[in-house]
């Protein structure tokens, strides 16, 4: 019995010692927090190169084994090396998405692609001569790429305040913002419709129009360019 009490006292003493040690450490060590489960990758992790054409480029330059020593982030859950994966299409799906409902957004865009395909095939069969037939693009992905390329603005207007008056000053636009505006305009045009028309239908028509360099979106782009041209006199406010 005495032995046991002895042990307990002994244990208490140890514990006090230990706890003192522990308290000291928490007080003195830095306050930076790290989580037991990291929520992101450290910045020396590189972005993965997983698409077939990018990989082929690496193999051509013999960079592959050199790069393989570095750590890479895993591809995101929407990225694959499949031939059906297209970053631009993915971007459009993300723009269509509301409240994180990706499956619905994806089905809408795919439905729009189906509509484009149907319309184009109908046109293809209505065309009489081989030259006319060869002019018709049947791939909806190509149509989308063309539509976005045609609706990308080259200039933008930015409000700059000088002497109490806000001027709309034209200036160059970054590649990223121009892509963003093109997709936004296409979707705004598609959503500007009667209630009886479904989104995929209208979106398909807008895509075909824009790919053909006609329609609301291309007109909007040209309007912006015209306005930039008209406001040329203010251009110097960008740097003065």
């Amino acid at each position, binding site marked *: 019995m005495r032995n046991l009490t002895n042990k307990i006292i*002994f244990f208490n003493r*140890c514990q006090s010692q230990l706890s003192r040690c522990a308290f000291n450490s928490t007080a003195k060590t830095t306050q930076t927090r790290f989580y*037991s489960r*990291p929520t992101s990758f450290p910045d020396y992790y590189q972005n*993965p190169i997983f698409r077939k054409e990018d*990989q082929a480029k690496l193999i051509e330059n013999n960079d592959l*084994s050199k790069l393989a020593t570095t750590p890479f*982030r*895993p591809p995101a859950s929407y990225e694959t090396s499949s031939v059906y994966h297209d970053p631009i299409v993915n971007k459009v799906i993300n723009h269509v998405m509301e409240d994180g409902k*990706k499956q619905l957004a994806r089905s809408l865009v795919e439905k729009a692609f189906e509509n484009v395909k149907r319309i184009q095939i109908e046109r293809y069969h209505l065309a009489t001569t081989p030259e006319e037939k060869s002019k018709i693009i049947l791939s909806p992905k190509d149509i989308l790429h063309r539509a976005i390329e045609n609706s990308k603005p080259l200039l933008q207007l930015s409000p700059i305040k000088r002497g109490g008056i806000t001027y709309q000053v034209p200036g160059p636009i970054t590649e990223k913002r121009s892509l963003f505006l093109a997709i936004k305009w296409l979707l705004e045009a598609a959503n500007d419709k009667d209630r009886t028309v479904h989104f995929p239908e209208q979106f398909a028509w807008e895509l075909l129009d824009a790919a053909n360099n006609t329609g609301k979106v291309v007109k909007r782009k040209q309007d912006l360019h015209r306005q930039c041209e008209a406001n040329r006199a203010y251009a110097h406010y960008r740097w003065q």
Partner: protein
Amino acid sequence: MRAYLERAKEHDEFMKKQQFEYNIGKRHLANMMGEDPETFTQKDVDRAIEYLFPSGIYDPAARPLMKPPEEVFPARKAAEFDEAGRPHHYLFYTGKPNFFKLLYDAAENIQLLQQFEDKVIRKKATPDPNGKLDLNATFWLTKDQLEQLLVEKLTDLEYDNFKLVMERLVSLPYSYRCKDFIEKFRKSLTSQKFALEIPKPSYDDQGRAFVTTYECLRKKARGDVTIRSPGTGLITINGKDLTYFEDTQSREQVIFPLIFTGLENKVDVECNIEGGGPSGQAGAIRWGIAWGLRSFVDKDMLEAMQVAGLLTRDHRRRERKKPGQPGARKKPTWKRR
């Protein structure tokens, strides 16, 4: 001066006391664990603490610990001035002499390299292609590591400046000339993990090679993946085929490594998965398949898979909600009053 000496003496005494207490504590721990106190190492101490003071506290920094005092109390600089109180270091009055010395050295190296480049251009020579620095397998010291090296506290901005200057130095064509200087501030990565310990496939009673990867984790999903070769591209997930996943995205994720390696019709995949949602389960299976396929592909494909990021475990988890704010990062709407 006198105050400094007093403080230094106090610190020394304090450290001596802490060291003494640590040693005694270590002996007690050894006795408690029934082991020999003479051969009780720090590793045993950590194990003992974990056993005697089990703690489920979320933040590991808040759990009980017993470390040698040199680790717990940060190192202090020795006297930086002579008897007359005049500082030794020419940058003493910047407050962070070692850090600014480092920046000065880097800038000086940049200037020297530029002068050297001018000289080479005047001679109309071309840079040595073999002399290029190979910085692939190393990365810059982290802020904490740099602080320990310099024995000075740094701000985030200062650390960014350090990185900026060093990146500039490395980007010069003749940077290999100050290799020693650069390598002082780089840390090497652990060797290629993916190439280590590739399991030899076992053989089942039909003579087919198979490899099973256990513990395939992603988000909250966990499971195991078995790959059989030769096969016909059969995929079984919890007893169902690929239609186990209702959305296309998850299905694409599952076949991603198979398509990437071109083995989609040559192996059979069998997996058991539980927990989490479709995206997490698909991610876990993707990693499991990629990890298992290492036994069936050649070295070039292994490297390609590493560069594609297929062999990296996605260890990210949901970040916890913090008290006083509505989400992990989201703050309440700002109101004037």
